[in-house]
């Protein structure tokens, strides 16, 4: 399946992927409203990691044998028809087991409610995830690659 891949040599650390991810997962999908009028603010599902000059965006790898799906106590984590790992906030009890088993650190807790996790859903309904669309330096690509 198509996944989002990061090209760290071109990631300029602008964090625009995070901003547009948040907007996409907000109620209004309007950047100014999402940041200034919606409370609680929507959560971003991609995270730019930085160490020195190295920066790159991390989001769910949608593993074929996803440990988070196997570990989820309530079935909140599941695979959808695209093969994407999807999180159902209504079923989530905030046990954070998924966070513990994720080998990529791609699942983030909601620090405010200490319950629901937010993770990449590959922007259902969009042809290309918004982080890829809005990356100004094509450091994020959405493509099919052979799994190692």
């Amino acid at each position, binding site marked *: 399946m198509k996944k989002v891949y990061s090209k760290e*040599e*071109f*990631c*300029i*650390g*602008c*964090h*625009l992927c995070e*901003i*547009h991810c948040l907007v996409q997962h907000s109620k209004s999908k309007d*950047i*100014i409203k999402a*940041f*200034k009028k919606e409370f609680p603010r929507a959560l971003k599902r991609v995270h730019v990691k930085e160490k020195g*000059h190295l*920066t790159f965006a991390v989001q769910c790898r949608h593993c074929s044998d996803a440990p988070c799906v196997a570990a989820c106590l309530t079935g909140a984590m599941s695979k959808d028809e695209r093969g994407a790992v999807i999180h159902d906030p209504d079923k989530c009890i905030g046990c954070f087991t998924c966070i513990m088993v994720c080998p990529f650190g791609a699942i983030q807790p909601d620090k405010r409610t200490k319950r629901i996790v937010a993770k990449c859903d590959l922007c259902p309904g969009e042809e290309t995830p918004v982080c890829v669309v*809005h990356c*100004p*330096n*094509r*450091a994020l690509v959405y493509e099919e690659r052979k799994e190692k």
Partner: protein
Amino acid sequence: MAKVKSYIPSDFNIERDPDKCIACQVCVRQCSYEAHIYDTEEDAVNADESKCIGCQRCTVFCPTEALTVGPTSNPNQKANVHWTEKEIKRVLKQAETGGVLLTGMGTDKPYPIYWDHMVLNASQVTNPSIDPLREPMELRTYLGRKPDMLQFKFKDDGPSLETILAPQLKLETPILFSAISYGAVSYNVCESMAKASKAAGTFWNTGEGGLHKNLYQYGNNTIVQVASGRFGVDKSYLDVAAALEIKIGQGAKPGIGGHLPGEKVTEAISQTRMIPVGTDAISPAPHHDIYSIEDLSQLIYALKEATNYTKPVCVKIAAVHNSAAIASGIVRAGADIIAIDGIRGGTGAAPTVIRDNVGIPIELALAAVDQRLRDEGIRNQASIIAAGGFRNSADVVKAIALGADAVYIATAALVAIGCTVCQKCYTGKCPWGITTQHPQLIKRINPDIATERLTNLLRGWSLEIKEMLGGMGINAIESLRGNRLHLRGIGLTDTELDILGILPAGR
């Protein structure tokens, strides 16, 4: 002792629309001059305008278009045409530093732009114009020495050429990327120009910074430079190139050498320039083995010998008062191509006073050189490349009508990949990732994107050149070359018209 209080007012105002700013800090991360500051306590972004260079990186990247950056006008400064704010700031800067003022890019002084005082012709009634979308239109250009005459042998299966032709560069469009060294710009910029040249069927120029080993694969589209510092010159460098260029001068700084500070000489640049890591790369003002036309001839023929007479040798000079006589000497010295760089040519670093006051506009130099070589009957012996501030395809067409075989573009190429001509290249902190070696900043040029942008630019200009040629009723760029009857002057003095060799509009 207290720090000297600076009297220099900020150059730019940063306006932030509070209704639009979402404090996302994209501007903070993009500004390599730290002009935007995030206040964690207030969750707000503030600005330190004294640090802003007006490069517009933040305004372009701001996702809500909350930012406006524009020049300040100091209300305390009374209007004065002589003591402008710019001149006052320069005096203050020198009073505070005691140094030579540096700058980048081409001069921004309002010298007359002769391109804008020349208009092109078009066909009406008596000769038909040509639609380039329906009929073939030839932009192909060959650069190099042309023979005085052609001799043929006639055999049963048709005629064959007996004259041995000098090596030529074949261009699909009469536009080349001008010399920009690896060191002045990042590796990614060089790679983008090399790839775009290959895609568009033209050439890029290494400048004096040598050729990175990874770019040897683009050798067929590369002109390598031999400059006064001789950086990166060895046999493989000469062998891999399509043509060689001896750099005598540069339009932005005629008579001045170059200086790449040691902190920019990274491992890769040290390998490419063949100098130790961290040492200053100093290009002397003159070539220390060239003090006459005869000496130049020796170097030209040394290079030709070294490459077995398989590659054209170009000599690049800055446009100065005696360009025409110098050019004549250069052609007689054996150069196959002569490149002339006018006063508006760019640079990564030059003393402001030199950039703004030395040299002459390319339009006048080009017309004078072409005329002189024609008068002496040696115009066919060398091609002319004009350089120095070409902004659009019309400038290119006018230059070719004035007598150029092709033009070099560099500022336009950098603008295509993001440069906003902020003139701060010499600081090495280019927020657009162009004139920098900083490991975080160089990533801002993705060669895939930059190659696309450069190729698009060349394509766009080429299409426009075809349109203009078609309008004039010409179907090959060769027919426009030196065809000054297609130009008319507007608002020029008799002397200027005489130098340009064109008639005034209406005559």
